């Protein structure tokens, strides 16, 4: 009985503390939600937990950059953007679109954010797109390479993307393969979902009439524990070019390890850019050896922050400075390119906010997304952040990069994916 009383007291105490917060009435009096004289409140949802939690450095990179902006004096002498500090509220949706919907509702209705920035995941963004467009809340710089954001802007004018999309990237691989006539038998190993299929489509589009060069296209499921079955078949086709469309993490490393184990070393391995991260490559090297992985090719639109060639590059140095000064407590591995991705994206958001004017409104922010035209120092030389009334892909360029001993080097001219 004592135990029952104790538990009741504890529960009661917890309720008394939590309940007032739960029932607090929120006022809706601001003209532009999220904008006050000294703050800009934005929000986004990210998979901090769950199967794709390895992407969680992205929002942390963004937050770190925003902390830097809030501390430094801008071109007008004020800290933040025109004197307004950025407050970036993030929630964990564990990559489940239902969670994304509820948490985004919370951001818009309760936290009253000015805009939803950088939310990660194609399906997650698809889930919230109608709601945000109905409420006229900007959904910008989404962290996914699906092409919807760039192609469906007429239907959904409040949504816009950022990175080079998967289809465009696929086209780049095709173009590079065609330009190197030596290897002409392509095997594609892809994750069986929209992400993988987008790449596949892009590659086929890029090959145009020469899709017969593809001798094998096999997929895997996230629930597969072994790819030996598929990769053995791909080896049997005698393909010399192997394109991996796998997610960052175990699938990529497993695929490489399986190929090595089956005694197959294709002349050219291509790894899609999402998977070609430092952590993945390090694990791959530890498993299959440096020789196996050296020479692998990918695309990039961002400077590779682990390439010694960029050690003295002002952008990389600023990245290192910002990370060491403003990173979250506990230390971060700045080699992880997801932090770098976050920083690069945050840079563009800040630029957008400046373009949105001294008294930004949601409409002025969206107008700015249709008039982007600048260079982001964190991207490769030649890449332009550019949009127009008819082109809503801020980044649609990239270079082919080759991996060697821990870093990626550019080996092609700048390709335009769209």
């Amino acid at each position, binding site marked *: *009985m*004592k*135990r*029952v*009383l104790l*538990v*009741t007291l504890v*529960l009661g105490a917890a309720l008394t*503390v*939590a309940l007032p*917060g*739960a*029932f607090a*009435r*929120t006022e809706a009096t601001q003209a532009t939600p999220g904008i006050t004289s000294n703050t800009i409140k934005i929000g986004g949802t990210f998979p*901090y*937990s769950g199967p794709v*939690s390895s992407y*969680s450095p992205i929002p942390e990179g963004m937050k770190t950059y925003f902390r830097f902006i809030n501390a430094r004096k801008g071109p007008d002498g004020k800290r933040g953007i025109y004197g307004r500090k950025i407050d970036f509220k993030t*929630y*964990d949706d*564990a*990559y*489940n*679109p*239902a*969670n994304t*919907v*509820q*948490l985004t*509702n*919370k951001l818009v*209705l*309760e936290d009253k954010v000015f805009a939803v920035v950088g939310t990660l995941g*194609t*399906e997650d963004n*698809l*889930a919230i*797109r*109608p*709601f945000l467009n*109905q409420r006229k809340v900007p959904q910008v710089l989404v962290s996914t390479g699906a092409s919807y954001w760039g192609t469906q802007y007429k239907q959904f004018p409040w949504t816009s993307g950022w990175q080079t999309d998967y289809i465009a990237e696929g086209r780049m691989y095709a173009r590079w393969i065609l330009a190197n006539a030596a290897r002409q038998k392509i095997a594609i190993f892809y994750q*069986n*979902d*929209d992400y993988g299929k987008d790449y596949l489509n892009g590659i086929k589009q890029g090959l145009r009439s020469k899709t017969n060069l593809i001798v094998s296209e096999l997929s895997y*499921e996230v*629930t597969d524990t072994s790819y030996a079955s598929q990769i053995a078949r791909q080896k049997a086709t005698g393909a010399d070019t192997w394109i991996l469309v796998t997610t960052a993490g175990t699938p990529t490393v497993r695929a490489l390890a399986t190929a090595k184990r089956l005694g197959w070393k294709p002349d050219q391995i291509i790894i899609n850019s999402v998977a070609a991260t430092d952590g993945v490559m390090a694990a791959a090297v530890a498993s299959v050896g440096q020789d196996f992985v050296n020479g692998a090719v990918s695309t990039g639109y961002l400077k590779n922050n682990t390439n010694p060639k960029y050690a003295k590059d002002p952008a990389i140095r600023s990245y290192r400075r910002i990370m060491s000064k403003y990173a*979250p*407590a*506990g230390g971060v591995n700045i080699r992880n390119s997801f932090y770098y991705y976050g920083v690069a994206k945050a840079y563009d958001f800040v630029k957008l906010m400046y373009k949105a004017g001294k008294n930004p409104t949601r409409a002025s922010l969206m107008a700015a997304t249709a008039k982007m035209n600048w260079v982001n120092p964190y991207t490769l030389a030649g890449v332009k952040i550019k949009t127009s009334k008819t082109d809503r892909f801020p980044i649609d360029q990239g270079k082919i990069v080759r991996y060697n001993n821990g870093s990626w080097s550019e080996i092609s001219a700048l390709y335009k994916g769209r």
Partner: protein
Amino acid sequence: MRRYLSVAVGPALFVVGAVVVALLPRFMGEFRLLEFTFVAIYVIALLGLNILTGYSGQISLGHGALVGVGAYVAALLSLGRPGLELYQLDPPSWIPLGDGMRPVFTIPIAALVTGVIGFLIGIPALRLGGVSLALATLALAVSFPILMKRFSEVTGGGGGLNLNLPETPFGWDISTRHWLYYEAWVTAGILFLAAWLLVRGRIGRAWRAIRDGEVAATSSGVNPALYKTFAFGVSSAYAGAAGALFAIETAYVNPDTFPVSLSILLLASAVIGGLGSLAGALFGALLFEFLPIYSQEPPIFSFHFAEQAPSVVFGVFLIVIMLLLPGGVAGLFRALAGAVRTGRFRRRSDTSELA
């Protein structure tokens, strides 16, 4: 007099609860209304799970999949063939999809379809004992997202389906958010009453008899097969109704929305709320809705946890609650009520009835 009081407590509480639910929107902002709408949805789902696992004693690790079935049925029906055409989807003609119906009508249909499926699952489930049944239902939970992805000609595959954003039907003059809230809670109320009638009647007694001792129940003349499959059917129908409301409220369905973890967390919430008690569904639903959101932003603490901290805290919380309150929150209230009623606050030596 005491007897009349104790009989009247249940219905009185229900009436009080109904009044509270009806008046709550006055005191809440829009987001809180949305959260409580989801609470209603989870109440319905947990009522179903409670009937299956709590009253008839059949463990289910696949309830989330059945919720998903209801959600997809509702999504497909409310979009109709014209809506699906926008996704370049053309399901086989033998599937009776109309031209898109009002979302509110999809609820009973989704419940019916899911109920039938559940009943059919219940038949082979009779042969399977505890562990095997757990595996079978887990297999259901695992397979559901895979099947939804595979049959993308019907379901929209990985990209999922956006339902039309909800709107108040029949031109009534009430905000959409309020409409959804009342839609969910009225459905929950009706289904709660239905469950209450089932549980306190002959069927409920049969279920409890089967749960507590199948052999004894059989020798008393109860046909376990009939009641157990019926429990599966009813439980699934509830899941289907919850799923339909879920689809309407979220306005999006896709395979990732109904992962294995949904089934597991529903079961955990049902147990923490309290099995074998319908009120337990309410506590479980409150937990299921509010804990994940507010564990990311605890009003008490303000320092930065690691990203994985909420998972660890939640896991430990499950363990601790089970250690302290094996009967769930409802069990706690029952113990309290029992202590009040008998005026005894000392430790009882007899084992109080569990679940």
